[in-house]
């Protein structure tokens, strides 16, 4: 989604070049107007990082924009600071700290509640400045000396000069765009994009989601602060209205109008929006009527904003050769010696839901390097059991040991990092990301460097290699650049498994990997599992008995949350209790 089609790239370069000559050919007013547009563009891009890439819709983003203006005004007035080298960093730090404090609390909520919490905090900041006598109250503050940059006695830059100001803002705009693009292509960017598309899955992959969201919130807050700093410096006026919900709402309009999650869209949106306000307000006294009509038309006709329309026009169909980067002989990801030492043991493991016993005192030992199948009728507690193993559910009783280590209290992401991978019964992918990106995110969850914002190229090659390798093993190399949403049902299931593989687990927990698959798709997945069994330990829940008998080494039968038999497949199969309690029942039903 970040790979820009060539025509768009050309368009952006031309736009920047066109902007750069405005001070040479345009009137002073145009210089000022374009400066405003650029400031709004920076602000809108910072919001797009949250809305379009992290999935956090903030209705209080103007708080950081306005706060930066106040920080600059107060530093200039009370501390007499005019050097940009001092005021800019201090302002950005102030915004970062505010974003850290607000974000740490706000990210505890989600969806519409997040929208409202950010609104609430922004309104509190608004009232703080509105009610504060020292800071001008509702009339706001004026900045009489504009920031400047001097080296010794030589003045390098003075924002007092409008042309200088223009180019400083242009530089800030281009820098912000490049920074955000680099950020989004970095490991960090992959993870926040993944959170945006499918938060639950990202958490299951072992990422500390909250920390990523908070980091994104802080970065967005700092960039909004940069816009606010420039906005306040341009006219030298700050007012509580700059912090209010109307301004936050206006920024959201710009982002949506431009096209969320495209970065260049919101920037373009800022230009279009201000131009439109300027033109419409000159047409008629009731121009807001036209504005309202325009906004509605955009929603109905351009659901993906201006950027969406541009991308549709510019989209070049991907060349045929690009996708086929498969490796014929994919190396095994991890070679595990098959020995009989248990990799996972449970002791007295139980789970009770409000009086209902789902899993009752299960003590089992799973040997390393084997395929273990857990079967049982519906409602026997199989999925609950897997959820206890993966950490999705905390047990009511008992303990779990992984390679001898007690992991009973470990979270799903901690277990994932230890080497327990888990696939979901209902496929749980990132539909709007490519297959490669899906696996990339998974592979990256094994890297300690994901929080790093910029690429360590070598590490990334490693991640890419592992992602590609996982895809190849699952037979999806051909489709690595296709969006996950375009895959067939069977392919999705294989991608699901590829994602687990990319996390390099030793132990794979597979929850009904064959559910809902047709005969041919089913055969392909069974084949894949058999291949995986060569170098992994597998614990799988499955209904398809033929498949189970074909690949499993051991069989455990759960009925009403209790183990009624466990052991080598042939032995359990012939156990009369099992035949009667389960297999007979199953055959009768079939």
């Amino acid at each position, binding site marked *: 989604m970040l790979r820009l089609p060539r025509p768009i790239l050309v368009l952006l370069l031309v736009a920047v070049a066109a902007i750069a000559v405005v001070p040479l050919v345009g009137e002073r007013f145009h210089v000022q107007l374009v400066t405003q547009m650029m400031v709004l563009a920076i602000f809108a891009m910072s919001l797009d990082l949250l809305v379009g890439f992290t999935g956090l819709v903030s209705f209080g983003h103007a708080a950081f924009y306005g706060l930066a203006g106040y920080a600059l005004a107060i530093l200039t007035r009370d501390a007499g600071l005019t050097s940009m080298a001092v005021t800019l960093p201090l302002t950005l730090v102030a915004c970062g700290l505010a974003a850290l404090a607000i974000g740490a609390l706000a990210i505890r909520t989600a969806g519409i509640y997040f929208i409202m919490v950010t609104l609430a905090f922004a309104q509190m900041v608004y009232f703080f400045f509105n009610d504060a006598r020292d800071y001008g109250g*509702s009339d706001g503050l004026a900045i009489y000396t504009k920031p400047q940059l001097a080296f010794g006695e030589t003045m390098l830059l003075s924002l007092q000069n409008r042309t200088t100001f223009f180019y400083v803002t242009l530089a800030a705009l281009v820098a912000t765009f490049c920074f955000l693009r680099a950020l989004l292509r970095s490991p960090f960017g992959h993870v926040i994009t993944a959170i945006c598309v499918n938060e639950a899955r990202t958490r299951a992959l072992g990422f500390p989601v909250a920390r990523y969201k908070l980091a994104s919130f802080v970065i967005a807050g700092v960039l909004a602060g940069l816009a606010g700093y420039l906005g306040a410096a341009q006219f030298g006026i700050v007012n509580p209205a700059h912090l209010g919900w109307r301004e936050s709402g206006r920024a959201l309009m710009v982002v949506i109008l431009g096209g969320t999650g495209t970065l260049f869209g919101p920037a373009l949106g800022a230009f279009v929006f201000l131009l439109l306000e300027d033109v419409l307000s000159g047409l008629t006294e009731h121009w807001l009527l036209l504005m309202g009509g325009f906004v509605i038309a955009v929603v109905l006709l351009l659901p993906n904003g201006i950027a969406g329309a541009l991308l549709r026009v510019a989209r070049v169909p991907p060349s045929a050769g690009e996708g086929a980067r498969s490796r014929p002989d994919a190396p095994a990801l991890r070679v595990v010696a098959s020995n009989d030492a248990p990799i996972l043991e449970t002791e007295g493991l139980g789970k009770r839901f409000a009086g209902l016993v789902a899993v009752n005192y299960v003590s089992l030992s799973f040997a390393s390097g084997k395929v273990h199948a857990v079967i049982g009728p519906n409602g026997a507690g199989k999925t609950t059991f897997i959820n206890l193993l993966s950490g999705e559910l905390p047990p009511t009783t008992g303990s779990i040991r992984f390679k001898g280590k007690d992991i009973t209290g470990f979270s799903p992401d901690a277990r994932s990092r230890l080497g327990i991978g888990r696939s979901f019964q209902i496929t749980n992918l990132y539909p709007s990301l490519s297959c490669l990106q899906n696996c990339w995110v998974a592979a990256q969850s094994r890297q300690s460097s994901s929080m790093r914002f910029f690429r360590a190229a070598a590490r990334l090659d490693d991640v890419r290699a592992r992602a590609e390798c996982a895809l190849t093993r699952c037979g999806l190399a051909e489709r690595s650049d296709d969006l996950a949403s375009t895959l067939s049902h069977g392919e999705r299931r294989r991608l699901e498994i590829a994602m687990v593989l990319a996390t390099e687990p030793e132990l794979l927990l597979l929850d009904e990997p064959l559910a809902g698959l047709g005969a041919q798709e089913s055969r392909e997945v069974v084949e894949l599992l058999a291949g995986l069994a060569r170098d992994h330990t597998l614990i799988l829940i499955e209904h398809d008995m033929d498949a189970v008998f074909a690949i499993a080494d051991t069989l455990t039968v759960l009925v009403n949350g209790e183990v009624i038999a466990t052991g080598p497949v042939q032995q359990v199969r012939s156990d009369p209790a099992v035949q009667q309690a389960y297999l007979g029942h199953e055959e009768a039903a079939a």
Partner: protein
Amino acid sequence: MRLSRRRLLQASGAVAATGLVPSRFAIGQSAKVRVGLLLPYSGTYAALGHNITDSMKLAFAAAGNKLGGREIELVQVDSEADPAKAPANTNKLIVGEKVDFITGPVHSGVAMAMVKIAREEGTIAIVSNAGANAVTREMCGPNVFRTSFSNWQVCQPMGAEMARRNLKRVVSVTWNYAAGKEMIGAFREGFEKAGGTVVKEILVPFPNVEFQANLTEVAALKPDAVYAFFAGAGAVKFVKDYADSGLKARIPLYGAGFLTDGTLRAQGAAAEGVLTTLHYADSLDTPQNRSFREAFKKATTRDADVYAVQGYDTAQLLIQAMDKVKGDTKAGKALIAAMEAVQFDSPRGRWTFSKSHNPVQDIYLREVRNGDNAVIGIAQKAVADPAKGCGIA
């Protein structure tokens, strides 16, 4: 120059015909004098913006739509009364439209931006409503004029007046925003100087109009009187709630003139007997006021109000000063001197500029009687703002 009643009435026909289409994109000739209007034409304050604009058009039409012999071109920008957009809107007029004069706004927050940018750019600014004290104090300048009032000016005289009425303990109520605080501060200054005590200053979050909690508080404090400032819908609500709560019968209500201006019809009987001070009253019985109101009504079918008067005086300032310099907008000091020297024979009475370019004007004491602000006296004659911190005063 003075306007005859007949010329005004002729002009009102012309205004009605030209209507209200903003003319920002009208094709201008360089010979025209461009007058910028930064006023709210949408949102809560739209009524004020329209009255100021229409009375300016009325006055210009009466002067033949010429300033010092040059055609006038009005350039209107909708300020939306939004301080967040104020710098950009001001810039649009001053730098983009290259107006010779910028006038407006209604909102004090917008005025701060307008005055600051006008000072930087050197464009002559005429504040036609916003009362923020700072405009003709800290932010004053040779090219900054105000034809309306300062918050201090309209409220301070009531302090002495209430003390004269033997009211000792007063509770003040206003919104928690700059204009409210300045108005209450000015009243308090006058009242305490005359020996009274403000027992409590109640500040209501802006623009909250739920006053019951505050009225209960007032009842518990049992003051001799209440002094209040609200405007627009807040004023309507406060005055009605005050009457409904039964307080009005026991504790008289005083306030800044805006409490009962342009709101009386909506307030109905609840406003009867409320005493306020302002630099104007609809019912002022002078020939100037009568003919102005008649002409305004004819032109717009609406009743004139204090905002219309301010717009009218803003136009008068331009007409007279430009006549003196023969339309030379580049006359600089001569133009400013001409503006400073203008003697206003306004519907509100005679007034002149102080050294800080704020009106020196009479402040009337008004009482609501039969749905009208009846003038019952002059609270203080020729009130001048103290202009603290103004470099040119």
